């Protein structure tokens, strides 16, 4: 049953933003990680949104069924090399590879994800108000 118009899109949007928040927090937490399980420094991750039905043109008359999906991709940006001879992960020349993560960038992205999350909540609230009004038809 689909009582709240737009609830499906909004819930998928909320989930997508949640994953995005998670990825950003992982990036910030690993901003100085020089060694991961695969050996090298941590690689920044990014999310890529896609409309579920491919391009919007095929979404004709299917607006309620066109939520975004997302995939997590690795940012190919090369690591930043810092001269730090005493560091356990330093190479022969004394350079340590740090992940190319700009905390300011991540924070800006975090705020944007937050706002999008709130926007989807607003959609939910509005859809609910619509359904409630419809239920009041004919009430005295």
């Amino acid at each position, binding site marked *: 049953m689909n009582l709240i*118009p*737009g*609830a*499906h*899109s*909004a819930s*998928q*949007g909320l989930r*997508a933003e949640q994953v995005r928040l998670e990825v950003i927090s992982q990036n910030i937490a690993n901003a100085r990680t020089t060694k991961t399980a695969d050996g090298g420094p941590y690689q920044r991750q990014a999310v*890529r*949104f*896609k*409309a579920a039905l491919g*391009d*919007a*043109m095929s*979404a*004709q*008359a*299917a*607006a*309620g069924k*066109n*939520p*975004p999906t997302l995939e997590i991709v690795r940012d190919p940006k090369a690591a930043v090399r810092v001269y730090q001879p005493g560091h356990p992960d330093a190479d022969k020349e004394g350079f340590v590879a740090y992940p190319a993560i700009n905390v300011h960038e991540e924070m800006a992205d975090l705020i*944007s994800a937050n*706002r*999008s999350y709130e*926007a*989807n909540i*607003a*959609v939910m609230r*509005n*859809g609910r*108000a*619509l359904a409630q*009004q*419809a239920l*009041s*038809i*004919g*009430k*005295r």
Partner: protein
Amino acid sequence: MTEALFGSVNYLAEKRSLDVCVERQRALASNIANLETPGFRRLDVSSQFRTQLSEAVRRQDDSTLNTLRPTVAVDTSAPARTPDGNSVNLTDELIAMQDNGLEHSLHVQMISARMSRLRSAISGRIS
């Protein structure tokens, strides 16, 4: 007999307008959810449907009103907001959503008012 009570053109138009509001809420929800989808073009109730509806009301054509269903189409008039071609503007969408909510409650009130008028006609009491 109930057809005579609920078959008038205005009542049918109200019902169709309510359908439009629900369909538009769906379209706006999908727009906002795809705020960050690259290349996503915003959706809205098609203008073609809107002209069909107003035309049917003008002609008092109840058979068209009975079968007309709102359709959603890509809004080609919206300019791209980002370089990737996404045309969803959060402010505009939220305003449209508030607008749509008010329109929905207007139609709900019109339908409810018609029902309460009928009720007073049937019972002979003003409720």
